[in-house]
């Protein structure tokens, strides 16, 4: 099950420390072992189930552990926000789900179940067929993400015709429909324009049209609004929300901006150094965050919806190198509360534990300490 495709470098895979020896083997979407993140516990079968996903890269400097054991579930019609700073592994995770890592470089293990179908280790051509059809992705910078030499229409038509056996005319009609749907004025004319003739917001709309042309059931949006102005960002977020309602797809929203996830996400997953430090429903994570890193993130943001504070309360220090991830809890060098844990932070990697219904956190802090710090020290300053 957990193989990284046809990678010739993996001859010694038996001794590969990444391989799970006895991982749970979910049969057709049944979720075993790991805690399941879903607000609808009655649905046993998750549309997308990620189990202990690890993505490591061999580089000249050493092994980069970009993603080091991520698990989550996502249902159709729901939006999962993955939040983290640069290098936290959030984009790598999404590319891993899409099967977009080059097998020669990346070592991937774990499981990704999409609608009951395991993708890690599946036939690459099978995954290719799903890509763009069942799962689609939009990227951060639509100017560099669209090919400068082909018209917007041609690129959408191409996306359509890879997966659907339709004529050019039909695909073109469909492209115009999609451009119209994402709010591009005069789609009949604009379909023949090149990406550089579009404004930033229009390009991102076109990108979304391209991703949705085959009605994917999973849409991954990787920082879709980071390159855009705030008024345009609001338009795009609204568009994604509307489209999700319309198509009922599952959405993964990857961003560093807690404000953006708060707009869209039902569930939230906070990543730090390739691991999940906290996850739960968006409401839980925003109102009762449990991990000191989440506190730090919230404290770093000037809040428009609150009284202005005199000072921000950022996390000290900088994110760690992924080659030399700190021992124990990767966050411990930056954590102000290490002293409360009697040394376990430096040595033991904290398990992701369910601390409240629908709320998981990976932290050594005791429940009492945690609640006290949150209510007495953190919450009043936000």
């Amino acid at each position, binding site marked *: 099950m957990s193989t990284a495709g046809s990678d010739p470098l993996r001859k010694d895979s038996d001794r590969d420390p990444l391989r799970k020896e006895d991982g749970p083997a979910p049969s057709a979407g049944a979720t075993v072992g790991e805690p399941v993140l879903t607000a609808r516990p009655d649905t046993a079968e998750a549309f997308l189930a990620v189990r202990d996903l690890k993505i490591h890269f061999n580089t000249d400097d050493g092994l980069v552990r970009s993603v080091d054991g991520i698990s989550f579930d996502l249902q159709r019609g729901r939006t999962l926000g993955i939040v983290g700073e640069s290098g936290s592994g959030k984009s790598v995770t999404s*590319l891993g789900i*899409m099967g*977009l890592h080059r097998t020669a470089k990346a070592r991937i293990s774990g499981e990704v179940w999409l609608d009951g179908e395991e993708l890690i280790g599946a036939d690459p051509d099978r995954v*290719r*067929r*799903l*890509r*763009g*059809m069942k799962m*689609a*992705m939009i*990227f951060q*910078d639509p100017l*560099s*993400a*669209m*090919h*400068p*030499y082909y*018209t917007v229409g041609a690129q959408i038509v*191409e*996306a359509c015709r*890879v*997966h659907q056996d339709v004529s050019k005319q039909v695909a073109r009609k469909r492209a115009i429909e999609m451009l119209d749907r994402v709010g591009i004025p005069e789609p009949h004319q604009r379909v023949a324009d*090149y990406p*550089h*003739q579009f404004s930033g917001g229009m390009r991102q709309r076109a*990108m979304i049209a*391209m*991703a949705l042309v085959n009605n994917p059931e999973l849409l991954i949006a990787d920082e879709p609004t980071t390159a855009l102005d705030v008024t345009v960002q609001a338009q795009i977020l609204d568009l994604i929300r509307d489209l999700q309602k319309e198509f009922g797809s599952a959405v993964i929203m990857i961003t560093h901006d807690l404000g953006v996830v708060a707009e869209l996400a039902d569930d939230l997953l906070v990543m730090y150094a390739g691991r999940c430090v906290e996850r739960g429903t968006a409401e839980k994570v925003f109102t009762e965050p449990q991990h000191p890193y989440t506190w730090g993130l919230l404290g770093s943001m000037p809040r428009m919806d609150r009284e202005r504070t005199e000072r921000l309360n950022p996390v000290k220090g900088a994110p760690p190198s992924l080659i030399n991830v700190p021992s124990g809890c990767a966050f411990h060098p930056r954590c102000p509360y290490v002293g409360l844990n009697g040394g376990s932070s430096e040595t033991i990697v904290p398990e992701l534990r369910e601390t409240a219904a629908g709320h998981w956190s990976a932290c050594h802090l005791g429940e009492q300490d945690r609640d006290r710090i949150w209510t007495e020290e953190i919450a009043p300053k936000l």
Partner: protein
Amino acid sequence: MIAALLLLLVVSAVTFAIFFLLPRLGGQTTTQLATQYVGKDANPESIAAVKKNLGFDLPLYEQYWHFIKAIAVGANYKFGPDASVCHAPCFGYSFKSHIEVWPELKSRIPVTLSLAIGAAVIWVISGVAIGVLSALKRGSFFDRLSMGVALAGVSLPTFFTGMLALGFFQYNWHIWDNVQFVPISDDPFQWAWNLVLPWCSLAFLYSALYARLTRAGMLETMGEDYIRTARAKGLRESRVVAKHGLRAALTPIVTIFGMDFGLLIGGAVITENVFSFKGIGAYAVDGIRDNDLPIVLGVTMVAAFFIIMCSLLVDLLYAAIDPRVRYS
């Protein structure tokens, strides 16, 4: 278009200045210049006559005007008793053979063109193919081998590979006996057969260069965001490479190709000499060796014409490839 014509004019002025102004600045008199035209049996009268006929006494700008006019509409020259019409484009007469430059030049263009076009086809196809494969299989045995050979190719001059080829294939193994130029209108097969060795030895250098360029371009393009998008759409890798990667990677190659090809039509000097082809390059060498100014001038002008045409073509091609050029 106008810019191209202007540029041609500038080139002509500069070449003219080099050949007519510089010698004067260097202290050469017009008499010495005229002496070269008259040749062996020079006597003061004939020299004076030539000077007058060719207008060496006129101010320089007038001489330049005559030079341009001759190219545009032709000219009448009188050599002592003979009078002759030099039709446009007239580059004058060879000092040495007294033969008109243009007809000679014209007869040599097909030779150089055959050589250049054939070699270009070979080097573009092989260079780009090797470059793409190397980029896709980066770090593989094929990549290292081809880039090693390419490095050798870049460092080996044509006269070396050409001689080597001649030495083995003609003198040692007698696969070819006496490589010589056969016009395509006479016998297309013989034309091609005789050109194989010159083509290959000329293309080798360029092919190596283009392989390296293509590989670098391909590696860069394949790391672009839009390639990731193409893969995310679920395209087959072959289509991603051919349609999305290659087209972008080829843009800089087109520019360089225009330059290289233009230069080559101006004379594949070394190759022509190695294989004793009577092309433009060989003609230029003759002209320079004999200090035969009209020939050198003529070749320079023709070469400049081709180079400028090629870069014009590249600009058009560029706009066809990259829409951003078209609309800016």
